[in-house]
């Protein structure tokens, strides 16, 4: 047995745990365990006052290890590691026991069983804490530069902010021009300015920044490395002269992904699209408005448009399709387009077939304005979509209307506009190259939707704008600047500390069978020679400590710090007893 002196804290989580787990009983059951010097229960282990108490307990009693039994380590592992550190105890001597997600919440129907399980979990954590070791972070230098991928509004704004904060920026764009979808928008609410004009302004600002290198017509071929040191190979297509692809290698400390969205493309026949003449999508309608600029009347295929039907939620909140999410921007985009249209062609009658209008916040004012201007709103039931058919030169849209007690409404329209939502970029290669996880909606996933919306589980990679989920322009900019400030904090100091939980090879027993390197998802294992024998070598800056290499090693030559065989076996012994 070790001579560790452990402090154990059992958290009530304000009832989240103590409503189902008898935490006093847990305390009684573990307080006599070997090495346990003190055991306490607390209302909120994470609360400020308890953290203070833990600190003074560690200092006064010279504790050499700490266990907190509370929620998931995803929430509070770092909180309690920080407590240990402040008290002068190496943070890797802290062991987390999860008795909320794994006991109280999972077994709310069985209080006795939940308590019993919690006791086992805490005892196992104590067993691990007995063998815990002090570890020190791996220090690496970081490139003071960031690669921004995608030069839409989010990428442009993020690049400008990074440059102004003092970082070198590579702004990488696959098209031959910047601006992305913003160039296609008309007036951007709540301003009076056209999307195109915003793009011109941003382009000018980017040109003035010496820190920004803009690479257009670019394709990312390869990305390796880690936070602090990513190597990106970019191929640039020089256009007319074929075979003149240039390859450029870029070293950056962080990557900011701002690859944007695509507008949903309706399938043939969806709301009459492609099957019925005069049914187009919102982006197509915006193009039409631009091309029609200067005419007295709104023309489509040379005939005057007098009545228009907008059908909302096309490609969003789908009944049959995959896209269950709300695309957030489309209600306001439709309203904005309708108002812009009315300004130019006041005699056009617009019918909105909505599924409930979602003009949140101050966008409500646009909805109110559209109502005042005489637009007519029809709300179709959630499960009964409008039907679009051809009727001579017209299109007829039929729907039940909730707003008039489900009366059957028929609108004869000259043109039907499908208000299409946002879908993720169809080019999935970058996401898989960077190993970025996606959510149920297929957009890139953040670490925590509430509190960490621009960080990803891949250290050093942030996400901005609509590649994370549908957003309006202002929201994209806020997210871009947030991502920029996070990426900046990764690179601004020029030095980074990486967690020391990595795998180590015992070169005396390893005989290089290659099984570990095949199992490694991060390409962190290579062959090397020691005393003329081939052995595995692990790159500790690339290794994430995932442990995939351990079970495949036939000679048991790999150990993971902080999860050594001794620690894990002692936990299994307790849990199986």
């Amino acid at each position, binding site marked *: 047995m070790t001579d560790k002196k452990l402090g154990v804290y059992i958290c009530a989580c304000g009832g989240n745990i103590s409503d189902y787990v008898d935490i006093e009983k847990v305390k009684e059951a573990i307080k006599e365990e070997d090495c346990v010097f003190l055991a306490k229960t607390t209302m909120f282990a994470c*609360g400020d006052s308890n953290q203070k108490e833990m600190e003074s307990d560690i200092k006064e009693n010279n504790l050499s290890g700490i266990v907190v039994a509370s929620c998931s380590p995803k929430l509070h592992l770092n*909180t309690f590691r920080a407590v240990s550190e402040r008290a002068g105890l190496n943070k890797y001597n802290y062991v987390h026991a999860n008795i909320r997600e794994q006991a109280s919440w999972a077994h709310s129907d069985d209080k006795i069983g939940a308590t019993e399980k919690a006791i086992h979990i805490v005892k196992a954590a104590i067993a691990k804490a007995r063998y815990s070791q002090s570890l020190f972070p791996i220090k690496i230098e970081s490139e003071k530069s960031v690669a921004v991928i995608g030069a839409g509004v989010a990428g442009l704004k993020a690049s400008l902010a990074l440059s102004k904060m003092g970082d070198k920026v590579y702004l990488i764009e696959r098209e031959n021009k910047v601006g992305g979808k913003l160039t296609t928008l008309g007036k951007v609410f709540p301003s009076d300015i056209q999307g195109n004009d915003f793009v011109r302004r941003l382009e000018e600002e980017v040109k003035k920044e010496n820190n920004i290198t803009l690479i257009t017509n670019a394709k990312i071929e390869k990305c390796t490395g880690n936070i602090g040191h990513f190597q990106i190979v970019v191929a640039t297509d020089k256009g007319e002269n074929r075979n003149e692809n240039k390859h450029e290698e870029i070293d950056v400390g962080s990557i900011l992904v701002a690859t944007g969205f695509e507008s949903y493309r309706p399938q043939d026949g969806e709301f009459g699209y492609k099957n019925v003449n005069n049914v187009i999508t919102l982006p197509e309608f915006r193009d039409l408005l631009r091309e029609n600029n200067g005419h007295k009347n709104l023309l489509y295929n040379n005939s005057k448009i007098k009545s228009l039907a907008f059908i909302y939620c096309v490609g969003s909140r789908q009944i049959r399709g995959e896209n*269950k*999410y*709300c695309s957030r921007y489309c209600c306001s985009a439709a309203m904005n387009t309708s108002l812009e249209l009315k300004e130019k062609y006041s005699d056009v009658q617009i019918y909105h077939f909505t599924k409930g*209008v979602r003009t949140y916040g101050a966008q409500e004012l646009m909805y109110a304005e559209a109502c005042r201007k005489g637009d007519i709103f029809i709300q179709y039931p959630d499960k009964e979509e409008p039907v679009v058919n051809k009727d001579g030169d017209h299109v007829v849209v039929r729907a039940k209307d909730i707003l008039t007690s489900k009366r059957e409404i028929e609108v004869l329209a000259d043109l039907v506009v499908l208000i299409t939502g946002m879908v993720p970029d169809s080019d999935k290669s970058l996401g898989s190259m960077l190993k970025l996880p996606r959510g149920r909606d297929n957009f890139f996933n953040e670490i925590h939707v509430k509190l960490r919306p621009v960080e990803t589980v891949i250290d050093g990679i942030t996400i901005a704008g609509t590649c994370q*989920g549908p957003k309006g322009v202002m929201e994209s*900019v806020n997210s871009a600047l*947030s991502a920029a400030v996070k990426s900046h904090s990764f690179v601004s100091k020029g030095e980074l500390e990486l967690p020391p939980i990595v795998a180590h090879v015992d070169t005396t027993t390893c005989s290089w069978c290659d099984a570990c390197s095949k199992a490694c998802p991060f390409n962190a294992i290579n062959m090397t020679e020691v005393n003329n024998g081939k052995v595995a070598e692990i790159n500790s800056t690339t290794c994430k400590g995932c442990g995939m290499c351990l079970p495949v090693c036939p000679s048991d030559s790999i150990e993971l710090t902080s999860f050594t065989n001794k620690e894990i076996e002692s936990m299994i012994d307790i849990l199986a007893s």
Partner: protein
Amino acid sequence: MGTINKLQFDALVIGGGIAGGETALNLANNGYKVAIIEKELSIGGKMILLSKVFPTLDCSACITTPKVSEISRHPNITIFTESNVESIEKKSEYDFTTFVSRRPRYVIAEDCTGCQLCEKSCPVIVKDEYQFNLIGRKAVFIPFSIASPKVAAVDMENCILCGACEKICPSNCIDFTQEEREYEINSKTVIIATGFNLADPEKMDRYGKGLFRNVLTSMQMERQLAPTRPYNTVLRPGDGKVPDKIAYVLCAGSRDDSAGNPICSQICCMYSIKQAQLLMGALPMADVTLYYIDIRAFGKGYDEFYEQARGMGVKFVKGKIGKISELPNGNLILRYEDIQSGKIKETEHDMVVLSVGTLANREAPSLFKGIAPKVDDQSFILQDDPILSPAKTTVKGVFVAGTASGPKDIPDSILSAGSAAAEVISYINQKQ
């Protein structure tokens, strides 16, 4: 009055809620010195008082406390709780002078252990504002169990100076001689993160002016559902009965010209749907009905969360409540136009929750001497360049984060805080 303490920071953040805190953290993590001025006794704003958050149903206390403790322990952040900004003046570019007065807590903060013996000894009971008046507190009290700092304070307006707390305090930290302290803070920039005010039910004639005993605000329901809930179950405050037919009145004080607020508050649909789901768990036999105009479930995972509530059996009725009246037994009659059937209906419920909206906190602009940031039609801080620089105000060097510039949910507040931090760093860098 004593001497004025002079201090210097890179940035001064007004408001220690989630937006102000996140802005401060972003700046502090990049090496800037930040002062946070908070008028309440604890930082954490409204978020720290919530039950769970949508759409993840994370316990709000559980995800706020690590943030709050990171903020309060950061070596680059200095927090002034119980403090008022008296005036802000922009002397020149990168040169703001702010006068701050810190109210006495009558407790020596460094010595208080948060043992709560003073609370037990105090004979005075008044309404607890941190539990939105659902229960009482003492005249000497710790604001709430996860307050930061967790230090007692004497409410001098209600204290009868009996000295009981002073006698019982084991660390002798009650100090009735404390006086207000004055600070003159010089900073390069100012960030307004003063949050929002909740719409006041006392101004809603149609909904009983706050007089009906079993009509609560959503914030009161939030407290009833929180882990540190006052009654340890859901009760109607009028008579302590467990409710079994609960109604939510959405758009209470929003999308309503007659209430002076034509815009949508952006958060009420979602928090009501969340509370409805939590109520289904807390009171499995209860009926929960939401009366709405439109359901605005627009954020990531929100529409799915709305569908989940429908799947759980929460009832949604499209129709704005025109009038609430009270029956002798404390039950309530809701009168509304049921849009789906086109008929005027009246329905009885035994508890009603008003999903109150978010209104501008009008305080901040009035603090400025000389040029003050302009406000919009709803009195929110006006964004000077809303599309491309949402955090800029009409005064150079003054930025805005969170709901001070308009309604936002938590993710949008966090994003706006990051946005403000990026602008602040860029602004300070231009000087160097």
